[in-house]
């Protein structure tokens, strides 16, 4: 299959996913399960990464400021901008594309391999709607919270290392965080996150759902790899497009 055929089949899959669910109560239950699988289980890695990245940003920014003309609060300002505009949305979503994406692709792929998807279809259940829609909705719901948590923890991590290592005083750091703060930067970041969340849920579902069952475990493994590569590329492309239209 060429790229256009993949895109066409992907669009058809999305169309199926957004059909009316068989039972709203089942969708609600699956939605809650997916919030836990996709979101809550990712919180620890996101928290760890954000704390450390915030800390590293403070050290790197401080170590690159040589001129006495540049005020000390620049460290806080640069950390805030980096965390909010790029790290917490794009980088965290790229990491989640790996963690969550491979999980989704292997889960759905194994269901295809073990005929669980066929079982759903024979029963008369719209398998795409049943399996993919809860993942999309859960991702769209939970990812903005994850990104907001990442922003907060990154800035806290930066503050902790900055003050404890004597790089910057807490007052100067907070002044930097508040300096020329435009709330739209958070809106911009959350808009990006919604797009990323959609593709992190759908691209791995696509590769898992259409895995070649005769290829066995090897094909499921490949589908995981393909989904991570494809969703990472889409995230980078969407990041560029949204940044161009919203910030220029």
């Amino acid at each position, binding site marked *: 299959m060429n790229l256009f055929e993949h895109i066409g089949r992907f669009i058809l899959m999305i169309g199926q996913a957004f059909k009316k669910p*068989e*039972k709203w109560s*089942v969708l609600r239950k699956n939605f809650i399960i997916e919030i836990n699988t996709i979101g809550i289980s990712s919180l620890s890695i996101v928290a760890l990464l954000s704390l450390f990245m915030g800390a590293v940003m403070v050290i790197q920014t401080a170590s690159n400021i040589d001129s006495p003309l540049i005020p000390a609060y620049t460290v806080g300002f640069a950390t805030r901008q980096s965390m909010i505009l790029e790290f917490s949305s794009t980088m965290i979503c790229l990491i989640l594309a790996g963690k969550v994406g491979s999980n989704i692709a292997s889960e759905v792929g*194994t269901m295809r391999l*073990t*005929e*669980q998807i*066929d*079982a759903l*279809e*024979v*029963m*008369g*259940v719209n398998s795409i709607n049943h399996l993919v829609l809860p993942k999309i909705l859960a991702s769209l719901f939970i990812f903005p919270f994850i990104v907001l948590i990442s922003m907060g923890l990154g800035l806290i991590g930066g503050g902790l290392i900055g003050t404890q290592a004597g790089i910057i005083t807490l007052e100067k750091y907070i002044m930097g965080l508040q300096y020329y703060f435009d709330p739209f930067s958070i809106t911009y970041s959350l808009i990006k996150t919604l797009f990323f969340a959609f593709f992190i849920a759908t691209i791995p579902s696509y590769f898992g759902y259409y895995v070649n069952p005769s290829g066995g475990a090897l094909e499921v493994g490949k589908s995981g790899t393909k989904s991570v590569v494809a969703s990472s590329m889409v995230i980078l492309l969407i990041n560029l497009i949204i940044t161009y239209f919203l910030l220029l």
Partner: protein
Amino acid sequence: MSIIVNNVIKGFSGTEIIKDISFEFEKGKTNLIIGQSGSGKSVLTKCIVGLYEVDSGEVIYGGENFSAMNKSERKKIRTQIGMLFQGSALFDSYSVEQNVMFPLTMFTDMSKEEMLERVNFCLERVELENKNHLFPSEISGGMQKRVAIARAIALNPQYLFCDEPNSGLDPKTSIVIDNLIHDLTKEYDMTTVVITHDMNSVMEIGENILYIHEGENWWTGDNHSIVTTNNQEIGDFVYASEFMKQLRGKLI
């Protein structure tokens, strides 16, 4: 109600796998599709249940042309179909109880208590009482097949499909599963279609048999006529081993 397959043709990438097959799967009988590996048994079955669209021909369920129906029209028929897959196809993340309850949750408005009652009835019927809270990974292959049968009969289906129900099972458990399928067919007066290449199954429950060879309807009959047929192809299939060939010499 019976299932009638009329002149079904199905191919992939230009290669015809099912070549103009017509057959009637009779109500209240265990109908068998048999044949060597790669003969097209599974493809034909997937055409019948609608997992594959036929290239030409028709599949008729109780007088209704399933092949000509759209997805929503097919849903009504699908809720009357129960299917046991080769690998059981139980949902890994669901317990035994949740697996059997799944079709009831999706397609009925039963209360939780009513569903539980039905689940327990189905599990008792397949002799799996008190296994409700175990997960598929915690039970044996034979038990998984029985859970899958319980799930397949949960909605009181009119049609039961079993894709190689004995694969991976020992001969004794295989006969238990075969007898269970046969008994349920009589009990619910279902149209049962079993895909197999296990001769024990053929002899045990084969009331109406379709033998497929290279995608063609090669022979039809029952478990009595299959052992006495002079058809060379069937003979090679039934009496495949040297031991069976010697036995054939004594039989015929």
